[in-house]
């Protein structure tokens, strides 16, 4: 399969990228890891007039500590996230997540921010970032703005990112002292679209009750979503088997996943509940074990 013709511009800075996107107009697309865009172009499901290649912008693939939280550069590859000692030690939920994205070779190119910016509810980082309460820094012709990840996903393949904006940083707040997170996805095989996935981050208080819980679901509707009813159920309570089951049940009540060849809506709803249960168990265990996020 052969993509249609386009004009190509490799930029050296985000300002240059923003200027180019404005100049080229709606037909232009940003090229980062290409993991989603290039297959779409080969199938001619995407036919951009221009590609603005941001891969040559220097110093944009960092992962750094920021007062106990994380800041991630827009060109950080999945493989680098996975290899980061910071992530491995303090954010096992991100390790859970990156390891189930596409396959290891694709993860050498695919970027964390691209996984978010594509706006695909089947992608994995959206749920993880929703659970972690991340924020995205967007840059456009009029300057920079911060968007909470809760406000980022607007519709199917649609985000708060304007056509002439780029994501320049992803920020994950510092988790509280006794918190833990986990991501569980059910997929038929490596590289397949997930049937269901759930990200859970819980913070425990001194009495080991849930001080705060954030739960988000993959592939549960047109956008990645929070399971707020399930979160509310956990608040202030000690997590036991009954509560885990009730939380899964609450999460599954909330959603209307699409049927596809991997299964019907009810099937996916059930799997989402199981994913929440299993992620919750791991998250709580990690919180009790003292590990962060």
């Amino acid at each position: 399969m052969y993509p249609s013709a386009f004009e190509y511009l490799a930029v050296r800075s985000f300002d240059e990228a923003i200027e180019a996107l404005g100049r080229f107009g709606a037909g232009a697309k940003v090229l980062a890891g290409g993991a989603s865009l290039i297959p779409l172009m080969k199938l001619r499901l995407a036919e951009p007039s221009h590609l603005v290649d941001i891969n040559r912008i220097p110093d944009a693939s960092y992962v750094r500590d920021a007062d106990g939280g994380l800041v991630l550069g827009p060109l950080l590859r999945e493989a680098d996230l996975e290899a980061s000692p910071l992530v491995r030690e303090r954010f096992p939920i991100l390790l859970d997540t990156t390891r189930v994205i596409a396959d290891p070779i694709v993860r050498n190119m695919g970027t964390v921010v691209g996984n978010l910016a594509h706006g695909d509810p089947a992608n994995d980082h959206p749920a993880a970032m929703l659970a972690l309460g991340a924020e995205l820094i967007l840059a456009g012709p009029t300057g920079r703005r911060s968007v909470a990840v809760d406000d980022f996903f607007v519709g199917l393949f649609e985000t708060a990112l304007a056509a002439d904006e780029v994501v320049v940083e992803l920020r994950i707040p510092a988790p509280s002292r006794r918190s833990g997170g986990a991501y569980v996805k059910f997929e038929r095989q490596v590289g397949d679209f997930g049937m269901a996935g759930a990200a859970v981050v819980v913070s425990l208080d001194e009495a080991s009750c849930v001080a705060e819980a954030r739960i988000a679901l993959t592939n549960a509707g047109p956008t990645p979503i929070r399971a707020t009813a399930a979160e509310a159920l956990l608040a202030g309570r000690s997590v036991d088997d009954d509560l885990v089951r009730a939380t899964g049940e609450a999460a599954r009540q909330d959603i209307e996943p699409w049927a596809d060849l991997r299964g019907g809506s009810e099937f996916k709803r059930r799997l989402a509940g199981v994913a929440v249960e299993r992620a919750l168990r791991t998250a709580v265990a990690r919180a009790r074990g003292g590990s962060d996020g």
Partner: protein
Amino acid sequence: MPVFGVPVKRVEDRRLLVGDGEYVDDVRQAGALHVAVVRSVYAHARIGEVRTAAAAAMPGVVAVETARSLGPLNGPFPHPTWFPPAKALQDIIHPKLRPEVIRLLADDKVRYVGEPVAIVVATDPYLADDAARAVEVDYETLPVVVDPERAAEPGSPLLNDDWGDNLAAHFVVDKGDVEAAFERADRIVRQRIHLPRSTPTPIENRGVVAVPDRRSGGVTVWSASQQPHWLRDGLERVLGIPGDLIRVVAPDVGGGFGIKSMVYPEELIVPTVALRLDRTIRWTDTRSENFVAATHARDQIHDLEIALRADGTILGLRDRYFVDAGASNVECLVCPYNTAAHLPGAYRIPAMRLECLTVLTNKTPNAAARGAGRPEAVFAMEGILDAAADALELDRVELRRRNTLRADEMPYDQGIPYRDGVPEILDGGDYTACLDDAIAALDLGALRRPYEEGARPGRLFGVGAASYIEGTGVGPYESALIRIQPSGRVIVTVGPPSQGQSHETTFAQICAEELGVRLEDVRIVQGDTLALPWGGGTIASRTAVVVGNAIAAASRGLREKVLRAAADLLEVAPGDVRIEDGRVSVVGSPSVGMPLGQLAARVAPGIGRLNEAIGPGLDEYDGFQPPTVTYANGVHACAVEVDVETGSVEILKYVVVHDCGRLINPMVVEGQIMGGVTQGLGMALFEELVYDDDGQLLNGSLMDYGIPRATDMPPIEVHHRETPSDRNPLGIKGVGEAGAIPVPAAVISAVGAALRTVGAELRTVPVTPARVLDALDAASARTQPVEARA
């Protein structure tokens, strides 16, 4: 040093490992033009105008062809792979058969999504693709039929108006008095079983390169084909030039598994247009095209009835089955009759009536793929045995044991003809020992313990087994031409090409052993109609048996010639000459002799002296014709765990016990088995092509149609048994397909057994999580009051 039966490393590896393999898309020809194919987007539609002017005017476009522009060159022609079965078989089963045709491009209508409608020829594949999208086709859509049972009913949309119905083939096979068997039965069990449509998915797609030969007026064609000789024959008819001017080469081929044994429209149109334009033309299949335009596999629906005694003894079997051939029954009875011939399998079934309806539908043509009707047969037979065991409340494996043929019953006449029309007489093997060995190798005690001890809550455990027989080494016959060069190199030329089966190694082992030369001095030339104009193709687990024995025959003949020529020159009796490691010498005087190459030079035309008794040079051409097929057999067994929360299935252990006669190269045999099992696991766990009611394929990409990955594989154990065949001098049986044949049946038996422990029932594959949970839901719906579920 003996090389037959030894796991020698492969001769063909080196070039493939360093990137020097030459697959069709690697064939470089200066100035080649590229073809893009415009394919039907509808499953059934009348073609109106095809507007090509805009495409023709686009950059780089050299030609745009349609059925109309090709005129009589377009056909229809008799389909090159539609061969009626052996007359001996026809005389017994009197099948109703509808001959098929092939068109280079669809003319009056399209019959499936993906059917070629037009081609664009351009200087570059990107430009060809651009222009192909500018070809506009007017379609008038017609009613679509995708369900074979509906297609067989009166009033169904017709694929071919002149047929009057969609029945491509129909036959009945009878053994014994089946009515009496059912009257006598203690128990009759009925079950519908469907093995869904899948696709073999070789990692290399198809491809064709055609270079006109101005000197001869002919053409050289490279194709990723298992059947270069059949393609040559097809081209002879289509191009209207003598076959000797058409050279078809199958170079390195990146897997075939059956779908490269067909002759496709693309393989005919590329040479046709190359000659028309007098230009070199190439076409490379894409994966998207391969999904809709290369043949599919399986897709049979069986309605089975089995008559049993209370102790599980089978008295009789009835099966009425549909083969969904898709839009064209391109291989006649290959799969439909293979299924019938293999249905009784390793079992003792006194009476049978098998009725097959092969029906056209608006889907991609469906034909032979690894196993070719046998996985379907085994899936149906083992499926009815599962149902029978459940009905009789017998252990599923135990029911099989009671009905499996014993070694002392061999040879056993199954009482029906094989596809070649010869009585199906199973020629040996210890089938019950295979079953016992397979179950023993599972080591069930250890596997089952955690479940018995409650250590795996929410997980179900199940065991399954399935057996198979496989008629291998089908004729008619193959030949081998062997030449000893003055360099000492031995060139073995055979017809059928390799798609990974290790011919260059195993064939060389046979020649080296039989002729007495060193393995490294033997070179295999294959898959080139110029090198050897005859060959029946690498299909049907036949080349090791038929080509291998042809090489053995020619090697033995050549050995005699060598001994006589050497005896003449050394002035001793032929009985006093020996050949070892590529050297002839006098028995008892090893220093008196010469290398084979030197001997070859002494009798070679243009160098040596004509030995009237042996003819020119040290060459031999001989063939092998098997009396009928020889039956390989085996049993697969597995233990599985089912997660009741997610519906996921994990295969804890998978065991293969198989018997393919004498092993030429155990390493290669094991590789073939492992690959086959993996393809079978694909069918069992993941693979199903899904069509909607409009005939659109819904999962035509490797994103949506998953095949097994390294992370999906269970632990697999392979155990060999060697019962030599007495139907060929080497005592071998084929093995290329065997690994894939019983896998879906073994897996569904195990998963079904696991689900049965909680009253759930599942009898189809792939065992997707959604299907497993549906089965569990259906079971709990049966056992719980409605209020409790709400």
